[in-house]
């Protein structure tokens, strides 16, 4: 019996309703209600996030969502940041640009992370998308300032050009001079990673002058301190500013000039840069400190006393990135001054030194955990830790969402008891029920993984190095962590058993990385055969895995779910384990 409901809305109405739904998850849910909702939703989805560029093909994405305006792609596995993924592995954006150039001419925004971007890709972007507005490249490589110049020259409506930690070939092309004189729409410019590209200061000043909507400006190291004042005066509306080199000969007039320029920036909330800091110039930023919410001093090689002074001027700080020069004493001051602190990252000033060069220990972390009730996200490099400290931290901060601890020497035990740090990390996962991201270090047995599997139910990303005793450790994680999406492991004695026993789990995750572990080639082949919706990539620079016995462990293994099948752009040292047994290598 055909029953027409009284509640069928016209498509336009549904579309309007859907336009209020921004989150991908919700959009996905909407699309699964019924066929007509699926159809309506797909035509009005404007933003797509692809966490693994090989999980789906560009054609499939565009076919389903023909009217997107924004795309975000991630390429290489996270461990590529630490040089564990050999060059040439993949992550090329060009095929995506080609597809979109033809099919999605109204694309406005491209965000890429850990991808290989060529000048050719950039030139194609510049040519193809008439309303292009935002390019955000994070940890990307493969392009030069020539490609960026093409973007600057052609994209009249460009609002955002954000290069974060990219490896750019500096061809001294005077990038900024490629923005036409008529161009005024810049809102956000981040060139902090450009090396020694000589910046023409007059060009920069003119650009800043005419772009009255500029809110974010992060300069590179080549911009000297004495140019900053002029720039700030031309852009008093700046919210986020990154200095270049923060060093100059101390002269009273240039100091007061700088201090004055900073005080004219009433909207400034975030500061970064600070390369080569001359401490005497630091007080120039005091006028803006009381309103600062974010401060990145992680390249500032200044010592604890200066850091303490600075930090005590910033009561509203929510985010601090700093070198371990701050020491425990500095962190104690931070804990008492910055009650709104949400995120703290402490980087090592001398990671390869044998002896500690600063007095930064677990005490600093404990102090901050105790004094900052809103602390949610921590990245902490140190040289010693104890279970007691970790338990204290866990109890102090049940709201942690991200906890990454790096004890610099692998397999370092609890310095007080000489025991493994299982109990300490166990407390973290037990008390911090909303923990989404965790990185482990120190001496750890299978026990810690048992805790993680038992308690870390919201954990989405886990990084493991030099830990565990046996396959049981891996098994605990794979079988217990219900929300796990990304797992990356290096130098752990995990082998075939846990992996094969939990093969189905791998399809519920974005990816698994294992390097210098004990997974045999045979297991990889088996997994590839049995799990057609996984790409099982063996990365091995020693040569083809079939030149060694099947029981030999592979060097590196990267497994990810995909609906796009095997990829075709692999370099000679990557093999995908085929589903079809007839194509088996041996």
């Amino acid at each position: 019996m055909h029953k027409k409901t009284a509640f069928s809305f016209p498509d336009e109405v549904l579309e309007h309703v859907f336009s209020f739904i921004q989150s991908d998850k919700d959009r996905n849910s909407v699309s699964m209600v019924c066929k007509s909702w699926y159809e309506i939703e797909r035509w009005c989805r404007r933003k797509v996030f692809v966490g693994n560029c090989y999980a789906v093909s560009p054609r499939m994405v565009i076919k389903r969502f023909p009217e997107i305006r924004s795309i975000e792609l991630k390429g290489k596995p996270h461990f590529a940041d630490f040089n564990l993924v050999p060059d040439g592995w993949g992550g090329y954006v060009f095929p995506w640009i080609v597809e979109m150039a033809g099919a999605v001419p109204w694309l406005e925004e491209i965000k890429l992370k850990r991808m290989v971007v060529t000048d050719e890709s950039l030139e194609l972007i510049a040519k193809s998308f008439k309303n292009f507005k935002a390019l955000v490249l994070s940890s990307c490589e493969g392009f030069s300032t020539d490609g960026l110049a093409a973007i600057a020259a052609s994209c009249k409506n460009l609002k955002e050009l954000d290069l974060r930690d990219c490896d750019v070939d500096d061809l001294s092309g005077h990038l900024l001079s490629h923005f036409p004189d008529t161009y005024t729409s810049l809102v956000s410019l981040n060139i902090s990673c450009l090396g020694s590209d000589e910046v023409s200061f007059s060009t920069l000043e003119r650009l800043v002058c005419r772009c009255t909507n500029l809110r974010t400006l992060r300069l590179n190291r080549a911009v000297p301190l004495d140019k900053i004042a002029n720039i700030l005066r031309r852009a008093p509306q700046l919210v986020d500013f990154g200095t270049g080199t923060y060093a100059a000969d101390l002269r009273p007039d240039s100091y007061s000039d700088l201090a004055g320029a900073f005080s004219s920036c009433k909207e400034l909330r975030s500061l970064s840069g600070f390369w080569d800091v001359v401490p005497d110039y630091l007080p120039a930023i005091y006028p803006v400190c009381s309103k600062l919410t974010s401060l990145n001093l992680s390249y500032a090689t200044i010592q604890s006393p200066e850091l303490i002074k600075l930090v005590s001027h910033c009561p509203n700080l929510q985010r601090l990135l700093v070198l371990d020069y701050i020491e425990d004493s500095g962190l104690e001051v931070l804990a008492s001054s910055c009650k709104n602190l949400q995120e703290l990252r402490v980087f090592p000033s001398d990671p390869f030194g044998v002896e500690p060069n600063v007095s930064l220990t677990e005490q600093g972390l404990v102090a901050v955990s105790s004094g900052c009730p809103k602390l949610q996200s921590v990245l902490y490099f140190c040289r010693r830790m104890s279970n007691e400290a970790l338990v204290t931290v866990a109890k102090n901060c049940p709201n942690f969402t991200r906890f990454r601890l790096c004890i610099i020497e692998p397999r370092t035990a609890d310095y007080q008891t000489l025991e493994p740090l299982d109990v300490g990390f166990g407390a973290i996962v037990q008390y911090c029920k909303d923990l989404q991201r965790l990185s482990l270090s120190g001496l750890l047995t299978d026990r810690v993984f048992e805790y993680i599997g038992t308690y870390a139910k919201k954990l989405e990303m886990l990084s493991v190095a030099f830990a565990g005793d046996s396959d049981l450790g891996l098994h605990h994680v794979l079988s217990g962590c219900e929300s796990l999406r990304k797992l990356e492991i290096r130098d752990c004695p995990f082998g075939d058993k846990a992996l094969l026993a939990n093969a189905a789990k791998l399809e519920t995750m974005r990816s698994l990385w294992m390097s210098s572990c004990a997974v045999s080639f045979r297991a990889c082949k088996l997994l590839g055969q049995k799990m057609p919706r996984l790409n099982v990539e063996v990365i091995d620079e020693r040569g083809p895995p079939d030149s060694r016995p099947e029981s030999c462990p592979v060097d590196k293994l990267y497994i990810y779910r995909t609906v796009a099948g095997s990829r075709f752009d692999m370099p000679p040292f990557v093999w995908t384990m085929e589903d079809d047994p007839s194509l088996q290598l041996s």
Partner: protein
Amino acid sequence: MEKSYDDTNTEKSGLRLKDTELRLGLPGSESPEREEHDQNVLSLKSFVSGAKRGFSDALDGGGKWVFSGGSGGGSEGLFSPRRGGNNNGGNDLSGSDSGLGGPVLKDGVAPKPLVVQEKKSQVAAGNGNTAPASKAQVVGWPPIRSFRKNTMASHPPKNDNDDDNAEAKFGSGCLYVKVSMDGAPYLRKVDLKIYGGYKELSSALEKMFSCFTIGQCGSHGVSSRDVLSESRLIDLLHGSEYVLTYEDKDGDWMLVGDVPWEMFTNCCKRLRIMKSTEAIGLAPRAMEKCKTRT
């Protein structure tokens, strides 16, 4: 304990290990890999904690399951399967243990130990040289992004107290330079700090780029023996077809090999494997240049 979770969980997941007869052992062995593996893990642990056991110890235990099959190059081209006849052997000590910053040891990760580095350190210790200023390093550890490492390394922090050691801090970390080869589809990056001298560097690069010179590499039909036959490699690359050049801090391209190794690692910004025909005119004035500069 392992048995119980095997039985229950493999049933659940539908993967029946018994059916597939997956045995974690070398062909023809009972299940020795577990022991070898443990031994390997043990040797890895003691190695990391600084015990100066020779690499040969690590290799004896784990060597079998890693190196059998033979001719493959190591990760980053650093290991040679022929331990005894290691052509990098003892020849590369010139200039590298002169005490300038000390040799950089690379910590062992079992499948890719660095035989040469270890030998070097043993000899250095024997010669009574001082211990290295920086400790043994593992690739990618501590987990610091390349951008940060390169930034801090290129401008080491100025300390009031200890300017001599300023270079030794981040500077001793690593020194990644890009290597391009005419005709190759992508660049590689190498860490100059982990090589003791020109021979090691050259050998590592040969292994890294061998596949591009010998044509059909990477296609799964090619047998490994053809692709990575070392004698063919050396013939091709030591023949006159390619030369190794580098760009120095002034932006000039020079032939690699004319200046002492330490000087080279300080000057070198990037490397290029150039066709010999294009390299005509690269005068070996590197020595003069570096002298006048430093």
